[in-house]
């Protein structure tokens, strides 16, 4: 048993195609990859919202903001 179907390199390379593991599950892998990508945007948006809320709640007097502007 081998995860890519190759048991030995006693072959002519011109007769060999893909050699990655779990061939045949490409569509499933793409779906998992897409879920990972979309999930990343969801998580990132949640984190950014929380950050912005924290920034909005900070520096009620504006003093720190004035200092930040002076520092450029």
């Amino acid at each position, binding site marked *: *048993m*081998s*995860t*890519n179907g*190759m*048991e*030995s*390199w*006693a*072959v*002519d*390379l*011109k*007769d*060999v195609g893909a*050699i*990655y*593991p*779990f061939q045949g599950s*490409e569509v499933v*892998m*793409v779906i*998992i*990859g897409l879920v*990972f990508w979309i999930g*990343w945007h969801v*998580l*990132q948006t949640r*984190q950014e919202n929380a*950050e912005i809320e924290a920034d909005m709640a900070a520096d009620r007097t504006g003093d720190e903001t004035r200092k930040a502007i002076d520092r450029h």
Partner: protein
Amino acid sequence: MEGNLNALTTIFTEFYYWVTIVMMFLIHVGFCMYEVGVSRRRNHLKTLMKNAMAIPLVTITFYFFGWWIYFGFPNGPGIAGGLVTAPFAEPWNPLMGTHLSGVNPGETGVTPTDAALWHRLNGVFWGAFLLFSITTASIISGSIIERARSGAFWIVAVLVGSVLWILDASWGWHPQGWMVKLWGYHDAYASGVVHAIAGGAALAFLIVLGPRIGKFRPDGTAREIPPHNVWLVTIGLFLIFTGFWGFYAACNIPLISPATIAGQITGETWTATNIYLAPTTLSAITFNFLMSLSGGMLAGYIVSKGDPFWTFSMGLCGIISASAGNDLYHPIQALLIGAIVPTICYKLHYFVERRFKIDDAVGAVAVHGYGGFLGVVVAGFMLWGQPSSPYEGFAHISPLGNFAGAVLMFALGFVPTFVVCKILNSMNLLRVPAKVELEGFDFALNHAFETSVREVGTAEKAMIK
């Protein structure tokens, strides 16, 4: 015609490796920027020099004995055979200098075959392996900043860079290495042979060295010691990513015929191979390098909540964790491994810091040590049952073989480094006194700088009419 084709292949291979050496030098530019960026202002110059001087020290020692170890020790010796003779790698051999392929009259130990193969390739192969060596040593340097003596690091750099890593490369990263033969060990882009061993050595150094003053509060919880320049840190890591292209390319043989491999491969199709002479392609590693880097950065951004230091570090960890199998993975497999393993490593970094009071200033043990270790283990499962080599009779890749290999790599870095650090510590050669640590390593240099500025300024002002 055949002679010209052979010459062309040899010269192409020579040029290919030469380019990888130039690219890999960027790793060290990156390491220096990164380490200086993490250190505090009063430690800059000594931090820079500690890392930079590993380059000449590992270079000369790798010339004297490191290169010979790679060819001499694939059998252990004593595990799969005896010591292997390798005259072309002995520092006194004419093939370790300018050479034009003939055998000099009276030259002992060099065959015409040796001369024909090594006269052009010896220097560039040596150089590419040397750059791996310096990388392995440099990985340790960042974790121990701001309290370790430079001299102690340089001794450990030679030990790890010119002895330990090249010994493990001879065992597990050589076409005839005993770990490949007997265990089916597979680690194509050095998750274990470079990164796990360096992480193990860094952990041993840190345990003996202890944390920086002020790192832990009286109740034992850790304080953050922020990088003085996050820009420098991230640009340094970008340069390391760039240099890693050379690292990856140098782990391949660019062009070889089945007849030259002389294994089981049949037919006439020439191919690129990994270090074990098993077929792969530059395209495969380009897909997988970029996807594993992306997995690490995407996961790092979320897990660290956008922290630049950890987002970039986890990108590097993503590459390292997929490197063992990046010659054979599918790109989406590389992406997922590159995302999941660094997330575990990030958690482990803070767990070990909290639980064992280990002050790893740059997270090197996590990124390289745990990332490399887990990368080798994962490859054992993902590539289970595949041939580890084109040669007959070698064990197949397996979870057990790769797990045992990962343990051996980490331990080979950890144990000897721990012993050497204990000896150095007993001689008061490992750590600077607390007063020097508090003053900063650059105290005298900064004082001399300010005195010079004042003196020359005073002289110039006196000339104003």
